[in-house]
């Protein structure tokens, strides 16, 4: 039995301790907002916050999370920064298929919590791990700036 704290709720997970968080979230707890894209921490679709830091759920075994707090896309809107990022995504029409956007939003929120006024280089470096096959990068960049309160962020 592995203890897990997700979005403020406590879970006892009866699965092998090396099971990646991703599949526990999706298959056991039923939080499907965190997406599977690669299984090797290459695409960022599964990005969650682990004690406030962005992490890839697909390579994080639940055994590593005993005393940690996990926040997923379903709860990031309870945070002011997360909410602002989500609103910016909607306002600027960022999503196309939308599948990667939960991970993008989690990475962007983590960036803005660390650097409220990120430079383009900050954005590049924070978002380079998140692939969007639809190619919404321009709007993602604009939405991050929009959420940061910058004017004229729309491409």
């Amino acid at each position, binding site marked *: 039995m592995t203890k897990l704290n997700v979005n403020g709720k406590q879970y006892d997970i009866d*699965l*092998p301790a090396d*099971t*990646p968080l991703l*599949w526990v979230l*999706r*298959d*056991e707890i*039923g*939080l*499907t*907002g*965190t*997406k*599977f*894209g*690669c*299984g*090797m921490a*290459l*695409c960022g679709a599964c990005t969650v916050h682990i004690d406030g830091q962005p992490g890839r759920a697909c390579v994080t075994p639940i055994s590593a999370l005993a005393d940690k707090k996990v926040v*997923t*896309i*379903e709860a990031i*809107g309870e945070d002011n920064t997360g909410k602002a990022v*989500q*609103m910016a*995504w*909607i*306002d600027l*029409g*960022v*999503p*196309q*298929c*939308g*599948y*990667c*956007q*939960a991970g993008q939003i989690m990475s962007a929120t983590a960036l803005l919590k660390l650097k409220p006024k990120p430079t*383009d280089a900050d*954005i*590049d*470096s924070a*978002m*380079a*791990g*998140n*692939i*969007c*096959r*639809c*190619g*919404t*990068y*321009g*709007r*993602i*960049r604009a939405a991050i700036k929009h959420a940061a309160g910058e004017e004229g962020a729309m*491409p």
Partner: protein
Amino acid sequence: MNAPSPESPLVIANVSRRTFLQGASALGGLVLAIGYSDALRAEDPPKYGADAMPHGWIDSPLVFVAIGEDGIVSIVCHRSEMGQGVRTGMPMIVADELEADWTRVRVVQAPGDEARYGNQDTDGSRSTRHFFLPMRRCGAAARQMLEAAAAARWQVPVGEVQAKNHEVVHTATGRRLGYGVLAKAAASMPLPAPDAIRLKDPSQFRYIGTGKLKLVDAQDMAVGKAQYGIDTRLPGMLYAVVARPQVSGGKVVSYDSAAALKVPGVVHVVQIDATPGPPQFNPLGGVAVIARNTWAAIQGRSALKIVWDDGPNASYDSVAYKATLEAAARKPARVVRDDGDFTAAAAAATKRITAEYYLPHLAHASMEPPAACARIEQGKCEVWGGFQSPQSARDLVAKRLEMPVEDVTVHVTLLGGGFGRKSKSDFGVEAAVLSKAMDGKPVKVVWTRDDDLHNDYFHTVSVEHLEAGVDARGLPVAWLHRSVAPTIDSTFDADAKQQANYELGMGVINVPFAIPNIRIENPEAIAHTRIGWFRSVSNIPHAFAVQSFVAELAAAAGRDPKDFLLEVIGPARVVTPQMLSDSFNDGESPELYPVDTGRLRGVVELAAKEAGWGRSRPEASGLGIAAHYSFVSYVAAVVEVVVDAKGAMTIPRVDIAIDCGATINPDRVRAQMEGACVMGVSAAMSGAITFKAGRAQQDNFHQYEVTRMPAAPREIRVHIVPGDYSKPLGGVGEPGVPPILPALCNAIFAATGKRIRQLPIGDQLKS
């Protein structure tokens, strides 16, 4: 109009009759091909556009619109959402004509049922172009039924009332009735006759053309609630991954499941039989591991011991195959277009210039890999998944399970990217087969990324051989293009070796250039893997070769590439598909959709102007231009690159101009162009699936690199040519991609003098 839910059988009965009447009177022929013998059909005049698609189109409000007594208007979207914004765009058209208040509109996704909804095959950049008018008629008919109901209630002539913003108003007295109040009465009103439907004047559009509505799914996507196929969860559901043959045509000889069954959570291991014959959209077969969660299934699969028979494609090798294609491209072959006399004109030309271009296989790599869930209860099968072609999924499942089609329901979820991959519903059939193997329990099959990259329906690989004879000014007077690539037809016919008309008609045969002597040839190529549609399809290699070659000719002539391109296109004129020997024409009527070189020139000039073509440039920077006509739309792009001394490239800006006729949701047109730029850059810079010993060598995104934010164009500026709603519409989802690859490589040439003829660019710029 208090219409029953879209699934009500009562409505279906109504609709069949309606469809018949509408088809018979409006088009002079039955829209649905059902019931027509082949002999009869052969005598029909040729059909084009939506009329030519399986199950054609439906425009009945009884199918697409339901109004509750609370005033909520439900509008059915029958096409699949994969990022193009169709679940916003299509209902928006209905809502506009219906005078519905968008805040009181709900979108209902149709299951796969083409007899009921019309064609649902969401590909070919066709949804808006084929359903703009039917959806307008649908909304207008519903509006007129509401007006008729209000007029009857007030006992006034219908001409005195007008629907406006979710209510009907009697102008003379100022009386008003909301849509919710009128719904029941409106539902019993007769449908307006086709010739009595009054469409709005475009100046009265509330939503169409404004680009102001938010995406209907954006909120759910931003908070993690959006449901994709892979997110399906049903009570008692099991999870499956499948070990598939790594070589196309391979088969399981034997397998040992003992170790797999010992993995905690694994409940069953079962073989899926391969399907004899060409791949079609059938499962590849293999060994499935069924477990209590996805991770256990993945672990179980790793523990399987399988002996494979690799079959006839076990020696497929991309290096050797490239040489085979090159050899074929250097010999005369089947002539598919022959204007004038290429041989004589080339012999008499001032100079001859030859170039050859190579493009490797690409994988779609949608961020959501293929995934589907199926359940069988009381002899009926339900399937959930992100299908581009849900009717095809339904037909395939019914055939495989030997069930009547009526007993199969395909629920269409959001697609986490499609790009053509999810037109093939093999993954849905896998889910159904596995549910059956588990006595009907719900089973969700998930493809891992390596499954997706190893077993895709790959974009073809090609060699494009071009030769030109140029005159004293350097302009081509003779043009030879040999295009050799395994055909998508090979997926359906093992003997198919030549490009089909729908591939040749994607920018090789139908070049609308002002060149008197043109010969197009298509050598044979044998496919050794599953070939399928990839966003923009054969336009990608063809446009890359043609638009690179025109730039090479410009360089040889010492001319400005943009001016030279315009000269090769020639003066503004209308060119029929017949003049180009093109029997495809994107399935559209030659009369409605000839090639208009004036529009092609227009996008070249617009993109160039907006990009500041000709402005002075810093060292190591360059602009490249390319234009391409595809999916009956015209697109030109100017790409700006900077290449540093070490060969590192950045793309500060792309200006892309599109003329697709009138736009319905201009913001999504922009979004599609932005995405197309990134996908084009991705294909050019790093896109390649290579084979060795029959196996795709790329396992995941570290080996199949797709463009990430830092390498993507920093700024993409989209320029839309204004259109006219009375003229035919062009496609949007695909035509943005093809010009990007040549425009990028032409920019690299401008910046560095290095000509890229082999994709991907990879390390070719590194010094």
